[in-house]
């Protein structure tokens, strides 16, 4: 369980996240949407521990994030951002093994190697083993990075200082699919969705409202650093809300093949 209370993030005098309170339970895919500059990524950085908030508090399973060590939290919280820039030749195996770095101090234990192998087979990327990361395509890189994040939290966490032993694991995805083609976008989100069956708190930032509608259990709409609305999908999504948040006219259409509605946009009517 992740809880955020009255979180405020400032850069100089500019307020980027303005008093956000939210809670995220395991077993559901929570998707945060909002226009560019609405503070989504900063919010994610703040509750991941990468950005120190100006005020407010973040708790993991009731433990205050500010009091949990960086290494302790890294043992049960993984973050995947858009493809990191990497300009050096590294093997795929070493990149996946990076996910285990928080778990060993000098050289990987047999368990760490086993987990890397399991994750790679789970994502069907065993064939990439031994390849140089720089020679991979965008979709392959994405899966390798996802494997790294999964390897980090693959097993139920062992005792880590400051956190209850039987707590959840956490996976945060910051626009994970924006550089992928439509096939990989769906494949990726389906794989991510399968994880919510585990005891994992899964939070993603997505740009594509239709993708969000299709895969999310709950959507959170942000604008100008504040939460405008949040609730279960698909009920929460209305043309009025989309107009308020994104400033664009939208319609919801029934998809004859599924229960999820489809959003279409009417750009010309937007003043």
């Amino acid at each position: 369980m992740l809880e955020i209370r009255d979180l405020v993030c400032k850069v100089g005098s500019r307020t980027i996240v303005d008093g956000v309170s939210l809670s995220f339970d395991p077993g559901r895919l929570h998707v945060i949407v909002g226009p560019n500059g609405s503070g989504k990524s900063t919010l994610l950085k703040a509750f991941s521990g990468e950005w120190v908030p100006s005020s407010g508090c973040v708790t993991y399973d009731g433990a205050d994030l500010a009091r949990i060590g960086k290494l302790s939290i890294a043992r049960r919280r993984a973050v995947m951002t858009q493809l990191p820039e990497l300009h050096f030749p590294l093997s795929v195996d070493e990149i996946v093994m990076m996910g285990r770095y928080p778990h060993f101090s000098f050289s990987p234990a047999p368990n760490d190697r086993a987990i890397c192998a399991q994750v790679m087979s789970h994502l069907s990327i065993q064939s990439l083993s031994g390849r140089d990361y720089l020679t991979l395509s965008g979709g392959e890189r994405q899966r390798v990075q996802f494997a790294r994040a999964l390897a980090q939290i693959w097993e139920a966490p062992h005792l880590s200082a400051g956190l209850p032993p039987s707590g959840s694991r956490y996976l945060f995805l910051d626009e994970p699919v924006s550089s992928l083609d439509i096939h990989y976008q769906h494949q990726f989100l389906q794989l991510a969705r399968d994880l919510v069956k585990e005891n994992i708190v899964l939070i993603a930032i997505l740009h594509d409202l239709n993708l969000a509608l299709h895969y999310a259990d709950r959507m959170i709409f942000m604008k100008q650093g504040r939460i405008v609305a949040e609730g279960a999908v698909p009920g929460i999504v209305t043309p009025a809300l989309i107009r308020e948040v994104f400033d664009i006219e939208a319609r919801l259409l029934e998809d004859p093949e599924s229960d999820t509605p489809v959003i279409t946009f009417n750009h010309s009517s937007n003043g």
Partner: protein
Amino acid sequence: MQLKKIPFRVYYIVLGLLLLVSLIVSARVGAVPISYDHIFYFLRHALGGSPAPTGIGSVAGFPGSSGTSIEEQLFLQIRLPRVLLCAFTGAALSVSGALMQALFRNPIVEPGLVGTSSGAAFGAAFVFVMGKSLAGSWVDALGPFLLPVFAFIGGGLATWLVYRLSNVFGKVNVNTLLLAGIAVNALAAGGTGFFSYIARDPQARSIVFWNLGTLSGADWTNTAIVGVATVSGIFLSLFYSRSLNALLLGEAEAGYLGVRTESLKTRILLLNTFLVAVATSVVGVIGFVGLIVPHILRLLKSSDNRFLIIGSALLGAILLNVADMLARVIVAPSEFPIGVVTAFAGAPVFLFLLIRANRQQQKGGFYA
């Protein structure tokens, strides 16, 4: 490429053997060549074995003191410390290069470019020239230790300055980096030039010594200092190799993997300065070694920093010994400054990397 499939361990063994060969060959050549069986006898004698058979190594009419010949003296007191100092220096500079490249996340960085070497030389020149007037008669006793300390301060300041200037919002700007490097290097070289101009000590007067480096000052004291510093520095570096790998993905990503990035960056800067400054205070500025060696290892195998650190230590020692051998052989019985040799080998590699870096904007990676 098939070379990438060779396991790390095989690389270490091959490089280790090559290092041994290069040390022995380098100890042999010079103004007075020493044959391999003589080297073997001398080493055995030095390690407590029986002395060399009579007649070996003695020069007609010049019996050596205390049972050792002139040739043995030459080998043990001049040649051997020199090849070892050379190996330690090569290792220190190359490992520093690997560390700096991981820190800046850029393969075109090396201690000579980011100001560590010239800053260290400035600090050393300062002690050389001003030490007497500042510390008086103490300087003679403290000399061997004051030099590395001031070299450390000078190198550290210069590197920190370049790092701060080129690192904008957590991203290293290569253009600023190179320009800042030029400015800081010029400043430090100017300071060194000033001190060597006002110096009385003939060795300190030699601008060539500071700017192009020489191993001719090797003795057992400074070899031991550089050796201890280099080995401990490399050993410490190994503890950071995983964190540096994570840093290759970016600072935020490394943070998510539990790396305390700010503390890591400070430690790596200090470690780099320590390695380079101690060597530079003894041998002067030797450029491009830290650039070429990690580059070769990346092309051969991988950027995994564990491999780069161990590999750079071995390959750097080998290559600098080869360079020193060339410096001594080409114009024997005189010798070139070793920095001339490394510049001829290294500058083209640097230009090549620069061209690749420009292309990188379109293609997406130095090694892609």
